[in-house]
């Protein structure tokens, strides 16, 4: 399975979990695209917009909304367990230095972080409230996400334990461009 398909599989699982935990009907058909992809597509993006819209609706109706951390198991299933060491160990097992697993990072207590800025007008300041405020109008169609095309650069950086660039004296280009830069860049 190519990298894009792997990413898509993980993100799809996250969407399913969010939908299930919040009683949101969401049927995700099997993707029939055969080839390299980025791990997302207009349909995937529209599903996210739909979920956001439904979460907002439930919040408006006074129902509980569950998002934070509900898809941590998706990360474990994807082989990204917080207890796994990302790099390949190079030291033999009998050395006195032990390979230390990357322990899960505790969330920084809120009181150690700067408080959210109180805006003069409505802004998106992060967190559940912001997520709900970010939603499209519930009366808009489910594919409204298609018009929310925010340009972004899709560089392919190597993973931190993957291949590095060659000697810079003979360097050509170690950054694989998946997409050509968008004209939106210049705005």
């Amino acid at each position, binding site marked *: 399975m190519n990298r894009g398909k792997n990413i898509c599989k993980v993100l799809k699982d996250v969407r399913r979990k969010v939908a299930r935990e919040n009683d949101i009907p969401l049927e995700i058909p099997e993707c029939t695209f055969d080839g390299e992809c980025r791990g997302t597509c207009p349909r995937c993006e529209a599903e996210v917009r739909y979920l956001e819209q439904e979460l907002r609706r439930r919040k408006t109706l006074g129902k509980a909304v569950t998002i934070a951390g509900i898809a941590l198991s*998706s990360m474990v299933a994807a082989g990204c367990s917080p207890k796994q060491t990302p790099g390949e160990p190079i*030291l033999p097992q009998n050395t006195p230095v032990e390979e230390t697993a990357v322990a899960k990072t505790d969330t920084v207590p809120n009181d150690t972080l700067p408080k959210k800025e109180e805006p003069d007008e409505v802004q998106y300041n992060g967190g559940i409230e912001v997520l709900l405020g970010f939603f499209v109008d519930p009366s808009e169609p489910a594919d409204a996400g298609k018009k929310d095309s925010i340009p972004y650069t*899709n560089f392919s950086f190597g993973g931190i334990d993957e291949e590095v660039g060659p000697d810079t004296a003979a360097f050509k280009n170690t950054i694989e461009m998946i997409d050509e830069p968008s004209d939106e860049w210049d705005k």
Partner: protein
Amino acid sequence: MAAPFIGVARHRIGIDGDGVTTLAAFHGCPLHCRYCLNPSCLGPSETCRTLTPEQLYQEVLIDQLYFLATGGGVCFGGGEPLLRPEFIRRFRELCGPDWQLTVETSLNVPAENLETVIPAVNVYIVDIKDLDNSVYQSYTGKSNEQVWTNLQHLLQAVGSDRIVVRLPLIPEYNTEEAVKQSAVRLREAGFTRIDCFQYKLLK
């Protein structure tokens, strides 16, 4: 407070910390590593995207659902993200406390830069190359004296759980034994999350 970026990459999984993350890579770096993964960070900045913290926040907001559901967020890399401490501090004000903010840094920056971001960043991924200054200087073109100073200060400020120290085996520069000695020294200093790995040169 705009800054040049060499790229913003979505949907990174298991590479830049926990959960689904978006990597925001700054242009500019104080080092000149021979096997730099992103050498465009040292090239001309005129071709880079320039974003304010507000613009970057609006751009990455598209993946907030994934950030919250998976404990992910934004990873600042580059280049050297700690050359833009005020940008990161401002970004934290915008995104609030629920997003995980990570920096991938060499820590070879002025102490005041690190001090600025400490209240804003959750996890620090530090590639220290090698603790031996002669090896470090040969590979990067700069002394590592400030790195060790910053590492010790960071350990005292945030604790070992929030610091991942990456120790690479760099072909033609260090050896397995040297990496092992560096790891021992770091363990003795109190660091608990040490990632030993190997650079693999592209053919």
